[in-house]
Structures are given as structure tokens and as C-alpha cells.
């Protein structure tokens, strides 16, 4: 059931005096409260407005069935919902689908537009107006527009749109009280007559007998929104382009009437912006940023902080303490002890991993990601690497999940949804599962690589890169269909705001741990089970020929690979604990990097790509890891 349907049913129940059943839908407000929905293009400062309205107590949750986050909070007795940034309401991607669902349940919409780009942002505004929902327009970042030499006639804009228009500078809390004050005056704006006439016939045009009663839904039906068409069982009206074109013309007219440029804008913004797109300098910027991220996640978090939280805090203090506390109740060496406080126990390994290892890594990872997101750099990076990624059947946007993979492959697999076609998603997921080591693993591998010299390092990088390029090229050739093209907006570069970064990082960390926690519990249960039944040793024995005969590693390495099936960094840690020669270390590093993704990632791949692809990806990681590992073992023995 869509959120919208549920919301409507609940409202009907209120009207008829029969309160609806509670279904645990977190995003729904208490009965009777107004739903204020913030909507706007990406990079309009919507979240800053949201944070200013709702204060500290914000609930961030994934919209049901997606990975898109929706934040909700309170403003007095009303509920405020933030939506993902979109350029229009429809179903072009997950963000739009989520925004559409939330917008369609709104009582009042606060449309946040960027004062410097009214020509673009007003498209959404006019679409919201055509939907007929009560609206307030907040023209944000007027200070930045001022600096760019843009003057806006706000009174004229209000008259042309027919809704309250408030200039704001959300970061300095300017105009926010006026926006709140204007909520009471929110009203449906001046609709486009042509579109309005078509809306009346929307049901007819779509061949639906009982057309939508709601104007917003009727508009989406007219605009061939796939979801709404499906709900009403209608046929595409073929009117979308015409409606869009009319709206675009009106946007251009409105913008021309209210925007005055007192000086021409700089043609490519600042020098830094150009630098990021330059083939040479841009690549240097990438290297610098990757180095910075490595220092933040790989060194500071994965080594220094985790070295303390995991090794000292959890292993030396917490684990002995919990064992002591529970020893009177658990018989030593018994099954219950293995499951609860054993080596892989629920209260030992699981807690240590989640609190001591995962938590610091996830915080660092999200902090790094938020900086990249908020600075407006990611779209530039996507543009810079587009040419290279089109060679393996992806477009520049795929760089985002690939980079995220270095933080956590599981998270990265989820974000492959932002890619334009199933073909690209398959390629990206396969590459992530096969070749991208996650931050926890990088930490362990970096430790192993220390002191091995640059030949070993190049061998490692070369082997992994070769597999990346080979796998991408093969998939690109084999998979049918066409990949989508890069077509993105490049926002201006700006300095991220610290408070926004921290708030975002915290909200996402909490959400991640809430989702990942249970997976660790299952993983721990499975290993303890294998151990109790003695199957762990059996599997280890059967793997020995491969590890000793082919990879030239000691017999005990098999144990590490078994662990690696659950979590790759776990496996890497197992390998790091063995005493190995230089050549063996390189072999171990390559093999564990290419090895199967952790259980959590496999589960997400299974969910995202289905059982067939998940099994194929899992098996090919296995084969690739050992095949390439064996080759590297022989090369390393010659070279090192």
C-alpha cells in the first residue's frame, strides 16, 4: 500500500470518527496534525531550513522499500517532512518516487528555491502549483544571488505565482520566521490554464473510467507518471512533453519578469571549479581528496581510533568484564557459552565489532561522504571520470557507489540504485563485490603492506585494477541493452557547514547501525553454530589443498578465508595474524581483496539483484580471488 493510500484511508477514518488501525508507519504524523512538506531542487538549502524548523529531535528513516532517506520532525503541533532534492515530481529515479509519495500527502508545501537559479527551480514550483496544493515559496540564498549580481522582484514573483514568496538566508536564519508565519497564508497558486483544462480530461485521456478526484494525482496521470498510471490502470496520455514544454515557457516568462542581472555572471564560476574538471589538475584534485579520505577513514578511524576502541576498550576491558559477569550462569566450554561469550559470541565478538570497530568507521565514513556531498564536488568528479567509466558500461555517476564501496561495500551496493539502468546496476554491483575493499579491510591490508616496499604495493594495486578493468569490460560486452548517459547539474562549489555535516553524519550513523546490527547477530550465530557442530574444522581441512598447493600460503590460512566469508576484514585480520613472507603477504592481500563480499553485502546483493546474480557474483569472486591470487603468488616469488 502506498503511503498516500494509507494516509488517505487514515484521514477518511478520522472524518468518519473511526480511527484507523495503527500500522506502525513511522512517517505518518499523529491524526489531525498538519503535514508540512519541504520540497525543492537539490542544493537549495532545504535541509538547513528543515533543521532550523525542527531543531534537534529529528527522525531519519529510509522510505519503505527504498534507500532514500526521509527526515521528519515537529514544528509546534505540526509535522515537518524533508524530501530528497528533485527537479520535478515524477518517477525518473528513486528520489523522485519518494518525493512524489511524500508531496502527495502534504497539507502545506514549502517550496525552497535557490535565488541564483530561478530559471531551473521554478519548474518544480509551477508543477507544484499545477498540482493545486497550498504552497509557500522560500527563495533561499538571496545573499549568494546578490553577490552574483542577481536582483529579484519578490512582489512581482508573488503576483505571478499567486502564493506567498519569502526571501531567506537559511544559514543565517534570515526570513525563517516569516516563512513559518506565511504557512497560515499558504494557498494554491495561479495554475496554468492550458494544463488545468487538460487535467479535467486526464482520466479520459488515460482511458480510466473512475479518474482521480485529486488534482495532484490527475496532473501526474496526465504527465504519464508510471506509478499513478499503474494505480489507475491507465494508458499513457502522451501529453507529458506538451505539458512540460508549456511549463518551461511559463518558467522562462516568469523568470524574465522577476530576475534582473546587474552584471554578467562569471562564465565558469571560480577558478577552483574549472580546476576540478581539468583532465590533469582535476585528476590531481581527485588524488588529493582520496588521500584525505584515506587519512580520515583508513588511518585516523581504522587504525588510531579503532586500535583503541576495539583492541583496548572492547577486547581488554569490555570482553573480560562481560565474561566475568556471566561466568556464574554459563558452564565453561558449554554450547551456551560458545554462543553468548565465546570467541564469536553474541555479547563478545558482535558487540566488539559493532561498537569498537564499525561505529568509529561508519562515523568517519559518513563524515567524509557528507563533506563531499555538501561541497558540490561529487557531480564534478562524475563528469571528470565519465569517459573512463563509459568504457566499462557505466557513466560518471557510478563513481559515487564505487567510492562509497571503499567505505562499506554493503552501503555502496544499496546506492547503486541511483544508476540509470539495471545493466549499470549489475556491472557496478559486480565490480564492488569483486574488487573494492571496504574501509575495515583497507585498514588491515594497509597494516600488512607496511614495510613491504613499492614493488609489492604496485603488484597489489596492479592485480586488483586489472581485475576491475577486465570484469567491467567483459560485463559491458556480455550484458544486453544500453547504459544511460550522463546528464547532471553541476552545483556551485561551496564550503560545507559544520553543523549540517555533524547532524547528517550522526543521523546516518544511527540509521546504519540500526540496520546492520541484526546482521552481525545472525553472522555470529552462524559461526558459533559451525563451531559447535565441528563443521568449521571440516571446511578448513577441505580448503587446505587450495591454500597450500595453489596459493603457497600456510595451512592455517584456510581458517582466515572461512572467516572472510562472513566478513572480509575479519578474514584479512586472520591472514595478518599469520607469520608470512613478503611474497605470501602480497598474495594474501590480493586474494582477500578479491574474495567474496561479507555476509551483509551478499544479503543486500541478493535483495537488490536477485538470487541468480547474487550467486554468480559470489561464485565468480571466489574463483577470481583464488585464480588471480595463485598467479600473483608466482609473480611475487620472482619479483620480491
Amino acid at each position: 500500500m502506498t503511503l498516500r493510500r494509507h494516509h488517505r484511508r487514515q484521514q477518511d477514518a478520522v472524518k468518519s470518527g473511526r480511527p484507523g488501525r495503527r500500522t506502525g508507519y513511522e512517517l505518518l504524523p499523529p491524526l489531525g496534525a498538519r503535514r508540512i512538506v519541504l520540497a525543492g531542487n537539490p542544493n537549495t538549502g532545504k535541509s538547513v531550513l528543515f533543521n532550523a524548523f525542527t531543531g534537534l529531535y529529528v527522525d531519519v528513516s529510509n522510505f519503505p522499500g527504498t534507500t532514500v532517506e526521509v527526515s521528519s520532525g515537529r514544528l509546534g503541533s505540526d509535522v515537518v517532512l524533508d524530501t530528497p532534492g528533485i527537479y520535478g515530481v515524477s518517477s525518473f529515479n528513486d528520489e523522485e518516487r519518494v518525493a512524489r509519495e511524500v508531496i502527495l500527502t502534504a497539507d502545506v508545501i514549502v517550496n525552497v528555491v535557490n535565488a541564483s537559479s530561478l530559471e531551473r527551480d521554478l519548474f518544480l514550483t509551477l508543477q507544484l502549483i499545477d498540482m493545486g496544493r497550498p504552497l509557500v515559496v522560500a527563495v533561499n540564498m538571496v545573499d549568494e544571488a546578490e553577490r552574483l549580481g542577481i536582483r529579484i522582484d519578490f512582489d512581482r514573483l508573488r503576483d505571478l505565482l499567486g502564493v506567498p514568496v519569502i526571501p531567506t538566508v537559511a544559514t543565517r536564519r534570515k526570513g525563517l520566521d516569516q516563512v513559518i508565519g506565511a504557512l497560515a497564508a499558504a494557498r494554491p497558486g495561479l495554475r496554468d490554464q492550458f494544463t488545468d483544462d487538460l487535467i479535467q480530461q486526464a482520466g479520459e485521456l488515460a482511458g480510466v473510467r473512475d479518474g482521480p478526484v485529486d488534482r495532484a494525482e490527475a496532473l501526474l496521470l496526465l504527465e504519464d507518471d508510471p506509478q499513478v498510471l499503474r494505480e489507475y490502470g491507465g494508458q499513457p496520455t502522451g501529453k507529458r512533453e506538451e505539458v512540460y514544454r508549456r511549463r518551461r515557457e511559463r518558467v522562462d516568462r516568469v523568470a524574465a519578469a522577476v530576475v534582473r542581472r546587474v552584471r554578467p555572471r562569471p562564465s565558469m564560476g571560480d577558478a577552483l571549479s574549472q580546476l576540478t574538471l581539468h583532465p590533469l589538475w582535476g585528476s590531481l584534485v581527485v588524488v588529493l581528496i582520496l588521500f584525505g579520505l584515506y587519512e580520515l577513514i583508513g588511518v585516523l578511524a581504522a587504525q588510531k581510533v579503532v586500535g583503541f576502541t576495539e583492541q583496548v576498550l572492547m577486547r581488554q576491558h569490555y570482553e573480560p568484564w562481560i565474561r566475568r559477569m556471566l561466568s556464574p550462569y554459563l558452564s565453561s566450554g558449554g554450547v551456551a557459552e560458545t554462543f553468548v561469550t565465546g570467541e564469536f559470541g553474541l555479547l563478545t565478538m558482535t558487540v566488539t565489532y559493532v561498537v569498537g570497530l564499525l561505529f568509529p568507521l561508519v562515523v568517519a565514513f559518513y563524515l567524509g561522504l557528507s563533506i563531499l556531498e555538501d561541497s558540490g564536488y561529487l557531480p564534478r568528479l562524475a563528469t571528470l571520470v565519465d569517459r573512463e567509466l563509459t568504457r566499462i558500461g557505466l557513466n560518471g555517476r557510478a563513481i559515487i557507489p564505487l567510492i562509497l564501496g571503499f567505505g562499506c561495500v554493503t552501503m555502496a551496493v544499496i546506492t547503486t540504485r541511483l544508476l540509470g539502468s539495471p545493466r549499470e546496476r549489475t556491472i557496478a554491483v559486480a565490480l564492488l563485490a569483486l574488487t573494492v575493499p571496504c574501509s575495515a579491510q583497507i585498514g588491515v591490508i594497509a597494516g600488512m603492506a607496511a614495510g613491504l616496499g613499492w614493488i609489492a604495493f604496485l603488484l597489489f594495486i596492479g592485480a586488483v585494477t586489472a581485475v576491475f578493468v577486465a570484469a567491467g569490460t567483459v560485463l559491458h560486452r556480455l550484458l544486453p541493452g544500453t547504459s544511460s548517459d550522463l546528464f547532471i547539474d553541476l552545483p556551485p562549489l561551496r564550503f560545507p557547514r559544520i553543523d549540517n555535516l555533524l547532524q547528517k553524519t550522526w543521523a546516518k550513523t544511527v540509521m546504519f547501525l540500526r540496520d546492520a546490527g541484526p546482521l552481525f547477530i545472525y553472522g555470529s550465530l552462524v559461526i558459533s553454530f559451525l563451531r559447535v557442530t565441528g563443521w568449521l574444522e571440516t571446511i578448513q581441512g577441505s580448503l587446505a589443498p587450495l591454500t597450500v598447493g595453489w596459493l603457497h600460503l600456510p595451512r592455517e590460512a584456510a581458517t582466515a578465508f572461512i572467516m572472510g566469508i562472513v566478513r572480509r576484514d575479519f578474514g584479512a585480520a586472520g591472514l595478518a595474524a599469520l607469520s608470512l613472507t613478503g611474497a605470501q603477504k602480497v598474495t594474501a592481500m590480493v586474494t582477500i581483496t578479491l574474495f567474496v563480499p561479507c555476509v551483509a553485502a551478499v544479503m543486500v546483493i541478493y535483495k537488490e539483484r536477485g538470487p541468480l546474480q547474487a550467486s554468480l557474483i559470489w561464485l565468480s569472486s571466489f574463483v577470481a580471488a583464488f585464480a588471480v591470487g595463485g598467479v600473483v603468488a608466482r609473480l611475487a616469488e620472482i619479483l620480491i
Partner: protein
Amino acid sequence: MNSKWRPSSEEARPETVKRGMAAVHLSDARPGQRLRIKGIADDRARDQALRFGLAEGAEAVCEWVIPGGPVVLGRDTLRLAIGRRLADLITVEAISRDRRRRGGCS
């Protein structure tokens, strides 16, 4: 690369185009050129372009070209990066021959 996807603008391009006056593929634009969008031969991209503010008939400036890669188009404060294959599907008309050399040139 990807020769099977590309309508191979190098070969299909009429002679007049090289002189920079009539309809050209956006992929052939040079940084600094003022352009008018003539047509977008991709339904989804056309809809998205309307939202972004690049209707057919709109004027824009080619701001940047990554050699063999995306073209960056600017219109007012809007800046759009368009992948090469899509840029091949967009026909434009050069309305100025202003060629300030900046960055990569196609």
C-alpha cells in the same frame, strides 16, 4: 570505444558543420561557443532538459569540454554536464564563433 553506440559524428557530420555555421552535434562544440539547441533525439533526456531549463530553441554556452568525455553547457547560472554519447544525440546551432580557448578542446 563504444563504436556500436555512437552514430559516429565524425563521419556523418556534413561539410558545412566544420565551418561552424549550421546544425552541429553538441559533441562537436568548442568551449566558449554560443549555441542554440535544435533538437534532442532522446525522449527522457528531452523531458529532463525541459526541467533543467534547456528547451529546444534555448540558447546556451559551451563552457567546457573534457576531451573524449562530457560537454559542460551553461545557461544563466545553470551548468549541465552531458555525456558524450548523449551530446551526439543533441543537435545545436552555433550562434557565435567566439572561441575563447579554455581547457580541453574537442
